């Protein structure tokens, strides 16, 4: 009983914003990126640059000669001096402001009731690897291709979107136990 009381005493997190309103906010952020700098939003590019910078620290010669990493390490600007890197730094702040203000910032692991923490974390790493590899092959992720490409009417953006959601449904059927 006392634990139930303590549970209730905890501050209840706010409900999420109306999805259409959140979408308008996101759309205006995207439009602002086009108007201010002439490009859309992204995410996977920032991780790529972090990888390139790490490779450069660990194996500088490899980073400067290997065909993929040298695209990032042999330019006038350092790999981390990039639009997407600054934009992701901004996302850290924006995400924290929203999460803390709503009482949703707390240490937890999102998973369904029928799966262990260990399995969930392993699947998260595996899913991350697929997404990372795929995003580099596609030349962008949900932000760069689906959102940005979608808004600029890019054929590649809409092709990405259809494949992304199609494969998402297939993956969800395979790992139903993780979520439901």
């Amino acid at each position, binding site marked *: 009983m006392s634990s139930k009381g303590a549970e209730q005493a905890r501050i209840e997190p706010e409900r999420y914003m109306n999805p259409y309103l959140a979408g308008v906010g996101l759309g205006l952020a995207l439009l602002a990126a086009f108007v201010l700098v002439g490009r859309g939003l992204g995410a996977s590019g920032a991780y790529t640059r972090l990888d390139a910078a790490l*490779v450069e620290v660990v194996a500088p010669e490899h980073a400067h000669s*290997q065909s993929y990493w040298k695209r990032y390490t042999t330019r006038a600007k350092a790999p981390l001096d990039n639009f997407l890197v600054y*934009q992701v730094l901004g996302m850290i702040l924006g995400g924290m402001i929203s999460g803390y203000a709503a009482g949703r910032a707390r240490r937890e692991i999102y998973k369904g009731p029928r799966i262990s923490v260990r399995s*969930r974390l392993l699947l998260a790493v595996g899913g*991350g690897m697929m*997404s990372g590899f795929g995003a580099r092959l596609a030349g962008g992720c949900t932000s760069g291709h689906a959102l940005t490409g979608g808004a600029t009417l890019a054929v590649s953006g809409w092709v990405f979107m259809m494949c992304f959601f199609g494969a998402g449904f297939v*993956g969800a059927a395979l790992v139903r136990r993780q979520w439901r």
Partner: protein
Amino acid sequence: MMAPLFKTGVFGEVGFVLAALLVGVAFGFFLERGGLANARKLTAQFYLTDFTVLRVMFTAIVVAALGLMWLALLGVLDLGLVYISPARIWPVVVGGSLVGLGFSVGGYCPGTSVPALVTGKLDAGAYMGGLLLGILLYGEVFNGLASFAATGDASSPLTLDRWLGLSPALVVFFLVLIALLTFWGGSKLEARFGGEEADS
């Protein structure tokens, strides 16, 4: 023609960094606000119990597409200076499918994992570790993939209006229709498969 402001020289490098930070703050803020930093809510899309992902994404796309079109019509924005992806279709088909598979298996996509991790969701940290590993792997095997990754015309951007031979305004109009249909259908499906879960 004034915009894009950075490309027309209205502001310089400092403004560029500030603009990136600013749009990033808004991006992270609205992802978290909308519930897109919650892996259960994100993946609920694929079990048809919660259409938040499609609602937020389609609304954002429609708002930005309409904004781009109107600003271009008003002569404020030079669309020729806005970066549009080239049509490298096959790498996008394979890569996009992998990102989608990773999304339902891992619970996030590269963007949404950022606000999730910084609000304490540890699974987002695991996903992010996987992302860095997957990209590292891609970089290391790139030599073997380079020719496939370059498939398609990378020289010029391809837009739906050019590809279909329609006016951009008509394409945007159809986009709005498709979005409205998706919202309507989503509400029907939610009602059937049980919505309003994972709401915090």
